[in-house]
């Protein structure tokens, strides 16, 4: 068996593949965060919780309403995103003019509320969400056995990332959003209904998190705490990519997935830490992240 850096070729390739899958996942989550931060300057600490809500909504929808995975994939992001718009409209908006810190504090509080409440009703052990028929089983890639579902996650996540990137960087709406968050007062003086834009954007960003949540449901046990551990990793990804840089979030997400995957082979103990090492190195060399515009 051919070896590469001291591990069997097959294993190495396998790790790369898995890294990509996780990466796509990070990309999706950090994308939502980047959209919200980049456009609304809200450090959305509820993002992890909202991702968790996505997974839970899918689970409950299935158990109580019999709504299947595919439907959930559409409905859940809409619902969770929609509800989060209320949060923006009635909570976040009232502190929009304050330092970002307050947004962080508020969303952090919300995260505590969401998680705490669900814990009291569903405990923390986590429940299983069945993988839809079509996506069960796996593909034999020769060097590894890749569960079909993970392949699907890769595709779905990347597609969604691309769509979002296009929306924001290439459409007029995107331009409004970028400008509106810089000087919303002036945008209003131009006749743009900024508050509405902001609300929609927040809803969209959270929708992305919820979408990721639904994707995750069949992968990991659905538990109220599934989001909190992910949060700062995803946050780090956004920063490495360059705050608010959509493309940055996507590419960094993928990259970090791979790097983390390889760490799991060569120095597994550090798997959760490596991303921060990378972050330090990157910010040493490029103060505004890989794709961030220098202020």
């Amino acid at each position: 068996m051919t070896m590469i850096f001291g591990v069997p070729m097959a294993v190495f390739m396998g790790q790369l593949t898995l890294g990509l899958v996780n990466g796509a996942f990070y990309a999706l989550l950090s994308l939502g965060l980047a959209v919200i931060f980049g456009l609304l300057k809200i450090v959305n600490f509820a993002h992890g919780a909202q991702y968790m809500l996505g997974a839970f909504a899918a689970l409950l929808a299935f158990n109580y309403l019999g709504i299947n995975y595919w439907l959930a994939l559409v409905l859940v992001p809409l619902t969770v995103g929609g509800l989060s718009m209320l949060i923006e409209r009635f909570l976040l908006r009232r502190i929009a003019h304050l330092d970002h810190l307050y947004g962080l504090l508020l969303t952090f509080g919300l995260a505590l509320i969401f998680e705490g409440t669900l814990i009291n009703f569903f405990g923390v052990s986590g429940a299983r969400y069945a993988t839809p028929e079509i996506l069960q089983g796996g593909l034999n890639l020769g060097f590894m056995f890749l569960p079909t579902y993970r392949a699907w996650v890769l595709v779905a996540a990347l597609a969604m990332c691309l769509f979002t990137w296009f929306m924001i960087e290439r459409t007029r709406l995107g331009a409004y959003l970028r400008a509106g968050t810089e000087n919303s007062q002036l945008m209003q003086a131009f006749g743009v209904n900024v508050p509405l834009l902001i609300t929609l954007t927040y809803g969209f960003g959270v929708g992305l998190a919820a979408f990721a949540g639904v994707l995750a449901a069949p992968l990991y046990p659905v538990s109220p705490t599934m989001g909190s551990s992910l949060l700062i990793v995803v946050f780090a990804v956004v920063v490495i990519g360059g705050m608010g840089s959509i493309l940055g979030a996507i590419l960094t997400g993928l990259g970090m997935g791979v790097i983390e995957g390889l760490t799991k082979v060569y120095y597994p103990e550090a798997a959760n830490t490596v991303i921060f090492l990378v972050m330090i190195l990157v910010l040493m060399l490029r103060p505004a992240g890989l794709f961030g515009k220098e202020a």
Partner: protein
Amino acid sequence: EISDGEVRIGYLADMSGTYRDLAGPGGLTALEMAVADFGGSVNGAPIVLFSADDRNSADVGANTVREWIDQRNVDMVAGLVASSVTIAVTKVLEENDRLGIVSGSAASSVTNEHCTPNHIHWVYDTYPLANGTARAVVEQGGDSWFLLTADYAFGHALEADVTRVVEESGGEVVGSVRHPFPTSDFSSYILQAQGSGAKIVGLANAGADTVNAITTASQFGLTQSGQQLAGLLIFLNDVHALGLEATQNLLLTTGWYWDMDDQAREWAQRYFDEVGSMPTMVQAGIYSSTMHYLEAVQAAGTDDAQAVRAQMASQPINDFFARNGRIREDGRMVHDMYLAQVKTPEESTGEWDLYEILSTIPAEQAYRPLSESQCKLVQN
């Protein structure tokens, strides 16, 4: 002379975090059941309960207990789940000479290097888990192991125990990987396990990590490809959450199972009516240990820690929970343990019909022999 005319018991456990379902609110209910069954008072002295959430933090735990002692003059602390909290708390108990009964913690160090004259370890610890499961698996022909180890003290200890047992019983550990604690995505490690070609993949981790590992393993068809999982620290609530599809045929060692005999079933049913889910061995252990404690207080006629501990140690324990139970001088309550296998969906007849008990591991063989003990209370 019962201090200030009341027997005061504090229940300290993780009420909201990872170990919530293992002990948590359910454990408190079990404790209340015990007090109620005992009649609510000892020799006329009413029994008073306090409870607190330790949020799995040694600080919080130790402070809560310190305050209970300073402010409320609490006599006994029950529950005690996360090992870090337990060790911190037992130090406080020793300093103030109060009693603690540890039901939730897994670390065998609790009654080894960290033993004190002020606490008793009731339900289980990693030693019998490794001992029971690993030995049985090797005997069934699973002689080459790959270990997924949680990268912290507890995981390392468990890994050591397993390795020893496996080698003693003629198997070998071909490899292991230490994953950070906690880890949500195990795919990479499972892949490495598959690459290792070992027959058995042992999970030297706990709680959410174990659950995640098992889920991922089933996704990657680990068992289909001829390997087998051995969960070393896995509880009823984990299996229930994972579902039989993912866990079927898993071998594990448990200190108690609700369906193991009539006594157990009878109590479990009462608990189920209260809580709505079947009790874990920890929750059952909390009831059992509290009963034994209260009886000791009654017999000793005092709630002084040392007197009660002596009294408790003097009595063998045989109730719905423990068989051939006795408390050793290191504070370890040794009792029969059971090797169980998770049923397949077909075999299972109900939501909670999860285990099949394969064999009993006699109390004296199950736990670390005193001869190997580093406990300061044991003269070697």
